[in-house]
């Protein structure tokens, strides 16, 4: 056995509401019912690993609303937090404040307290090193429904130990200047069952406000608003789904499929959220209002190219 194994670790003092290990996700298993999973907000995931100077697909700890409280034991280590997150480090009974998107040095016996995400949902913790986690079907992404991935497919639990490996030399102090912009208008492309709905229903879908309900998680966002009435059939033969698909339930309520969604579904698909708006969509917390705006495929592709360029610029400016 290696010497000094498990020398560096976090002890989970508080697990947070929904803390899971994630990476880029799991390709090519939809056909056996296993969704993509992976970090919900892909840009903030990439930025976290960029700041840690890690491989882009290195595991991160994702948290939602209230994050974990972790006690650190080991040699000095660089860490960073991304998202719009309120956190502190407790060092020898002193509270130290830091900001997101910067390298922070964590010392032996420090306590990292991730208090909350601000008017958003997900945040990420990355380390200059690697969380020692299990892989399943080429990914560590935790899927709590199929009970697969890191941590035996479970959320973080109180009292557990997270072992760390490949600890890097302390990284030079550096920061990405980035502001998480919020959106209320979600851009969508027409879905294959757009014509299942009356003209009035479509007008209302594209002009009225919808409330993001509390019944929202990594699988999907449930919305409440005007009922979207169906003029053809409220059920279809079950067929493949992708993330971002907006299904209208038999009750007339929209559900947006997110990264852990069921791989097939039997409700009509009125639209699909464009790829460029996905990272911002998942960050909209319950209680918010959103509106849908229809655009065409060509524009969606152009907007995605711009979004991708913006991400690449953030990365290259940092390096």
């Amino acid at each position, binding site marked *: 056995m290696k010497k000094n194994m498990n020398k560096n670790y976090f002890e989970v003092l508080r697990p947070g509401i929904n803390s899971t290990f994630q990476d880029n996700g799991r390709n090519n298993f939809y056909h056996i019912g296993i969704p993509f999973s992976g970090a919900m907000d892909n840009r903030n995931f990439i930025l976290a690993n960029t700041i840690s100077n890690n491989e882009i697909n290195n595991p991160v700890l994702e948290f939602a609303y209230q994050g974990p409280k972790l006690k650190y034991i080991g040699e000095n280590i660089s860490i960073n937090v991304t998202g719009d997150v309120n956190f502190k480090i407790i060092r020898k009974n002193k509270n130290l404040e830091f900001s997101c998107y910067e390298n922070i040095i964590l010392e032996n016996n420090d306590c990292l307290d991730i208090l909350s995400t601000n008017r958003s949902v997900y945040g990420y913790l990355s380390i200059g090193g690697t969380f020692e986690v299990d892989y399943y079907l080429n990914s560590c992404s935790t899927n709590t429904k199929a009970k697969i991935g890191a941590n035996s497919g479970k959320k973080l639990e109180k009292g557990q130990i997270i072992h760390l490996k490949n600890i890097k030399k302390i990284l030079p102090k550096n920061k990405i200047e980035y502001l998480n912009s919020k959106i209320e208008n979600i851009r969508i492309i027409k879905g294959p069952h757009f014509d299942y709905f009356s003209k009035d229903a479509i007008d209302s879908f594209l002009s009225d406000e919808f409330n993001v309900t509390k019944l929202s998680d990594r699988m999907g966002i449930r919305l409440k608003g005007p009922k979207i009435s169906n003029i053809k059939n409220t059920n279809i033969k079950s067929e*493949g789904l992708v993330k971002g698909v907006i299904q209208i339930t038999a009750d007339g309520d929209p559900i947006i499929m997110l990264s852990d969604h069921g791989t097939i579904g039997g409700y009509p698909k009125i639209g699909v*959220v464009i790829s460029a708006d996905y990272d911002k969509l998942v960050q909209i917390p319950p209680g918010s209002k959103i509106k849908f705006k229809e655009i065409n495929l060509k524009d969606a592709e152009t907007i995605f190219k711009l979004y991708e360029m913006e991400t690449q610029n953030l990365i290259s400016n940092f390096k």
Partner: protein
Amino acid sequence: MIKNISNLGDAALYCDFGTEVNKEINRNVINYFNNLRDSNFLGITNITPSYNKLVISFDLKLTSFAKLKKQVENLELKKKNNSKNNLIKIPVCCAEEFALDIKRLQKLLKINEAKIYETFFSKNYYCYMTGFIAGMPFLGDMDKSLFAKRLETPRVKVPKNSIGITEQFCNIYTFESPGGWNIIGKTPVDIFDNKKNTEPNLINPGDTISFYPISKLEYEKKYE
């Protein structure tokens, strides 16, 4: 063959094979699925076959709807290769505590319990697709005399490994999950094994399933 290819958002193809549900159409879907799996077209991230549709999702950084659509349209299909598809035998225990809806079915179908099981076990079933939850197979077709509606109010928790029937289909709940199918028994075999890192699912689209009855004693033995 494919009747129409449209876009499902900006990062997926929606291939329409028709509106009916039958084995012939589904075999076409699965033939495309198998051929696409071997094609190595750049950027494909997932291929989801269902009764009569095939959804192909892709990485928008690597390819686009127009490019991939052309590739799929020009795909040269190799002869139908069913060597990947197997006949799988699944034991089912129909003890009272597992057959949660057998009483309801007797009333609904106006057939007695023995006849329901005799009919159910006399047929082989074809796997149209797997999914919704990990590994869950959608099997058909049931004998017409067993066509039954879903429960009016779905169960909040259907026990893992339950066998359910509704309309022309039957399935196996690979995890404890909410569900509205009529439950007629339970298998001791794990259809989805989340400990297995290769091929965790026992049943794949295109496979044929034959169910056979076992006693409570045999059921318990299988678990040991």
